[in-house]
């Protein structure tokens, strides 16, 4: 069981205008674990991810308080935002194939980071597409458009792109809502592999998915942590909080 702290969040508060969506949450995410985040819609799951990679900055009405550190370094005071974001891979709920070729979709981030040797980029593109279990399907048509792939393929392309800047942390925000169960299972297998190299934050609406994959799981509800613990406990018969049991077993309401 991994134990070293990778991301430390202390008393994180987030408000959009006057509406507070995270009410001062504190948690540690450990290196090389799969950290599940479950909770109903509007509970602040996506907002939490956006605070970690600072894309919350793009919402001008958002105000953040509290501290977040990654590898002991302060995120909210980060000077080089682009370096921070390269440290974190982000996969959105709906697949986003950029209107570029499959190759360029994956090569985009390394190029933005200043890499320009063709051989290096080729290597990264192949490695990331392999990691995302997409290589075999697209290796013969790397220059066709990423947007023309099927939904499931595009989501794997999105994951390949999220891996292309070689992040240490991979955030998946309900990655499976737009893809079929078979593809979902393939990606889940991919995640089990990736965990050797990185920390994975898995935000999901499918409680069973967190149960299958996550080492520890956090139940977030209305911007507060109801319970955080080993997945065995959260999904077992006797979590500490009654609401966790009810949510996980579909009795919530």
């Amino acid at each position, binding site marked *: 069981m991994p134990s070293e702290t990778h991301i430390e969040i202390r008393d994180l508060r987030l408000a959009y205008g006057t509406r507070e969506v995270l009410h001062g949450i504190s948690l540690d995410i450990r290196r090389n674990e799969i950290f599940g985040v479950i909770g109903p819609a509007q509970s602040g799951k996506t907002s939490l991810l956006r605070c970690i990679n600072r*894309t919350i900055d793009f919402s001008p009405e958002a105000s953040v308080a509290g501290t977040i550190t990654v590898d002991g370094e302060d995120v909210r005071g980060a000077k080089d935002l682009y370096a921070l974001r390269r440290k974190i891979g982000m996969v*959105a709920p709906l697949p*986003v194939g950029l209107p570029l070729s499959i190759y360029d979709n994956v090569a985009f*981030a390394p190029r*933005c980071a200043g890499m320009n040797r063709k051989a290096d980029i080729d290597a990264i593109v192949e490695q990331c597409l392999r990691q995302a279990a997409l290589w075999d399907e697209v290796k013969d048509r790397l220059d066709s*458009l990423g*947007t023309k792939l099927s939904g499931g393929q595009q989501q794997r392309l999105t994951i390949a792109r999220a891996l292309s800047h070689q992040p240490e942390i991979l955030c998946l925000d309900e990655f499976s809502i737009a893809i079929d169960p078979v593809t979902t299972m393939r990606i889940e297998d991919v995640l089990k592999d990736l965990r050797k190299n990185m920390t994975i934050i898995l935000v999901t609406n499918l409680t069973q998915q967190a149960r299958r994959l996550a080492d520890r799981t956090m139940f977030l509800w209305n911007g507060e942590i109801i319970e955080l613990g080993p997945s065995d406990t959260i999904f077992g018969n006797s979590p500490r909080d009654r609401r966790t049991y009810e949510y996980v077993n579909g009795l919530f309401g």
Partner: protein
Amino acid sequence: MFAETPFVRDKRRSETTAKWVFFAMAGSMILPLLLIVVFLFVKAAPSLRVDFLLDIPRRGMTEGGIWPAFVGTIYLVFISLAVSAPIGILAAVYLNEYARDNWLNRLINLAVINLAGVPSIVHALFGLGAFVYAARFGYSILSASLTLAIMTLPVIIASTREALASVPMSFREACWNVGATRWQTIRSVVLPNSISGILTGVILQVSRAAGETAPIMFTGAVFFKAVQKGDLFAYNLNEQCMALSMHLYTISTQVPGVRESVPFATAVVLLGSVLLVNAAAIALRAHMRARKKW
């Protein structure tokens, strides 16, 4: 079960009536264009020869061609758009991609909207004061072009913003998430996917710049200017020039004894060039749409 009750029959009839009323209004749009074109061509027929375009006006503008005015219009349109297109596009990129919602940017937005609403005669007066006198460019192609540039600027900004806004937000977020800067995102994803809309917007301003009379009349268009027949480089920037719209006005109202077909032929050239440019814009848009990437 599926028999028509009176209630359903009434519904169906009003549905049909509504459809035809709407169609009639939309369809009637063809009529004015058709009438204008046919009327112009019939009236212009006696003067319509290639030489009419290439020749210079003769006998106190009562005969001959329209070359100096045609070239003048080309000068004015190109120079004004060469000024307003880059400024407008860059301004629109700022407003759409960078600007936050604060008082300064709201002020810029307000300025753009109001600039679009200023009547062309007021632009003309402004051009006269600002470029002809204050900047000492005199009555010249430069002054007239700059005046036209200011007039077309807000519309170019608006159409460019629309084209930029049609690129889905999720593309930008995907780029930001992998550590791309805003400029890298704009350069590699936003602009390549909005360029057709941006160009269409710019090209459509050609017809406006070519057709306006008041702004150039005040700032640089002239009644008559002697140039060589068929000379494409007939003018210098600091000279006054003839222009189609102005020429049409003068030969229609100011010069006695003009052959009836001459003004109509002038109008055909003006309308023809504008329609040609618009057709190019439509073809460009269709071409780009065919290779639309999502």
